[in-house]
């Protein structure tokens, strides 16, 4: 009986939440402010992310994080005494659809800030409608190749410096000096590899080969053969799905791991663990701003993770590789900036966001580097062991993004 009541209450609250979300056209969702304030209108938060298409799993998680945070902020009394209203638009993993939908956020809904975009091509497509023509603040939450220095565009995910500076010396110590850089043929791997090669060579390592593949290539026998016959120690991989699964499998079958080889891949998080059998990626090393295993040592991470899983149980994980942690950090930094500025116009918030800090976030504190519009954060090196991650390295303090 008790159980039934509880579940009915839970159902009703979920139902209220769902009915509160108003559909305003294909792929548009509004979660209105929970209380009316006669004095001042709500602050409008815009989220533009991939709710459908191949990377919908990442976009859905990001939208979930935004819903969770906006609800928390409203429960705590809103911002500047005003409630928050959340506007979510689908960028559909498709740049031309995205530009139209983002314009809706800017022109129809007149949001005060837009957070979103996952791929670099998406960021490039929507930054102009948001920042230049839309005259709105834009926060980009995903790990990426760096070099985005557009004014009013703030990046809250890790950059190549943050993912390589601590990670590559660790790989050389725990793998070896001979690196292979197999890569998917698009902007992120090309730019990341330039930086990675510099760090590898500065630390006494050597790049045996760097090679690019079509994005849908799924047979890597020639690559695997070169890796084995060149006796490569570390495969620093930037091949993406669908190719990465067959690639790691072929490496495993060719005896790369058995011979003591080390896999490394800086976008690998909890979602990507399921692409392969655990044995095929045993010892794979990744370097990100958050891993779920941190919940064991860091009470604040445990709190975020538990709150997320309570609101959104299911397959869409709170994971660093899908920009969920960057979304969290971005919204909290923006909240801090709005509080400091005391208003929501673009220039005041951007000026405050330029040096905003949060004491607690996924993986630890974070702060914007003044004048750089990028974010310092703690970085963690983790190794896959029997289908889970184990933290093997932590940055001493906050790592500099070294951008702009």
């Amino acid at each position: 009986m008790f159980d039934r009541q509880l579940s009915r209450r839970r159902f009703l609250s979920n139902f209220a939440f769902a009915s509160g979300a108003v559909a305003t056209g294909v792929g548009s969702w509004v979660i209105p402010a929970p209380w009316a304030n006669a004095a001042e209108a709500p602050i409008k938060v815009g989220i533009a992310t991939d709710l459908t298409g191949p990377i919908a799993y990442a976009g859905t998680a990001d939208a979930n994080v935004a819903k969770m945070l906006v609800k928390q902020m409203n429960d705590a009394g809103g911002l500047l005494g005003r409630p928050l209203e959340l506007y979510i638009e689908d960028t559909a993993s498709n740049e031309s659809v995205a530009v139209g939908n983002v314009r809706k956020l800017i022109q129809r809904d007149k949001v005060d800030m837009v957070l979103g975009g996952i791929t670099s091509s998406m960021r490039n497509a929507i930054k102009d409608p948001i920042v230049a023509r839309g005259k709105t603040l834009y926060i980009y939450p995903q790990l990426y190749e760096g070099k985005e220095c557009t004014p009013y565009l703030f990046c809250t995910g890790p950059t190549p410096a943050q993912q390589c500076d601590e990670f590559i010396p660790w790989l050389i110590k725990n793998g070896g000096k001979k690196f292979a850089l197999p890569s998917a043929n698009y902007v992120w791997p090309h730019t990341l590899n330039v930086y990675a090669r510099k760090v590898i060579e500065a630390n006494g390592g050597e790049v045996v080969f760097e090679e690019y593949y079509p994005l849908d290539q799924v047979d890597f026998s020639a690559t695997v053969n070169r890796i084995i016959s060149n006796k490569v120690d570390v495969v620093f991989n930037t091949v993406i799905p669908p190719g990465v699964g067959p690639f790691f499998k072929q490496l495993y079958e060719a005896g790369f791991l058995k011979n003591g080889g080390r896999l490394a891949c800086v976008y690998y998080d909890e979602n990507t663990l399921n692409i392969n059998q655990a044995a095929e990626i045993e010892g794979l090393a990744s370097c990100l701003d958050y891993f779920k295993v941190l919940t064991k040592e860091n009470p604040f991470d445990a709190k975020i993770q538990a709150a997320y899983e309570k609101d959104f149980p299911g397959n869409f994980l709170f994971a660093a590789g899908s920009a969920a942690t960057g979304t969290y950090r971005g919204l909290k930094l923006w909240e801090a900036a709005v509080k400091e500025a005391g208003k929501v116009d673009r220039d005041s918030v951007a000026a405050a966001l330029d040096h905003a800090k949060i004491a607690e976030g996924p993986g630890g504190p974070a702060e914007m580097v003044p004048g750089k519009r990028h974010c310092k954060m703690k970085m963690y090196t983790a190794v896959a062991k029997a289908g889970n991650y184990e933290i093997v390295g932590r940055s001493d303090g906050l790592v500099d993004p070294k951008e702009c």
Partner: protein
Amino acid sequence: MANAFVAAFEILSFGAIIVLIVLGLGIIASMMGIFNFAQGEFVLLGAYITYLAYAKGLPIWTGMVAAPFLVGALGFVLEALIIRRFYAAPIVAMLGTYALGLIIRESVRGLIGGFYLTVPEPIGGSIDIGTMHISAWRFTIIVITLLVMVGCYLLLSRTSFGLRMRATLENPSLARASGISTPLMYGATFAFGSALAGLAGALIVPVFSLYADLGIRFLIQGFVAVMVGGVGSFIGPVAGAGVIGTLSAALPWVMAPVVADVLVFVLAIAFIKFRPQGLIAGKGV
């Protein structure tokens, strides 16, 4: 020497995978004159059924055995409900099957949440010959592909079912006059082609993992193989698949993979320009 052997094996195994995928496509295209754009999604469904068996804790073999039968049955139903209405208009049929494929693909994407999911091989690990390691499962795929090819050939050329099938597809009115139920034969042929796609999906999913675009990834390659091989016979598309699969796997060994990817298509287009009827012309088995 060892290197050359490994290279030959890897190239052969990818060739076998492409042949396996093209078998069903080729039978439907050659025998029925329909270019089935949903064929990639039938491959995907075979893969999905195998994944379901694994996720439910059943032995993976059961999923692999069930996949061709279930996908074949679905093919039979879809032929009767939808495809049958398009025989008079092959262009519309392409659009119709494309729409069908889109529906299946996006439904599967919804069901698996857009993730990439691993399915283990029933025969895992590698076969070690001296210092060389070759994948046990890829070796199994080569063997099964050979068996299925021979089996299909015998079915079409040596059995009375094969004879009736070919009669129906070559001259339907004469076949009807001779007492063959042509609608049933069309349904059976389409189901057979679908079942082969289901089998292909079931066998390749451990290699490539399950994701919604698994089938469409091979569709274009499959059609190029059919064009190169020649429409009209069973052997034609199979030969074309062998050529395209082998080329796609072999070229990256000698040149930049990005160039190799394009070159396969350039070579195929050039070949079709000079020999439009394909490698093996004419009707028959």
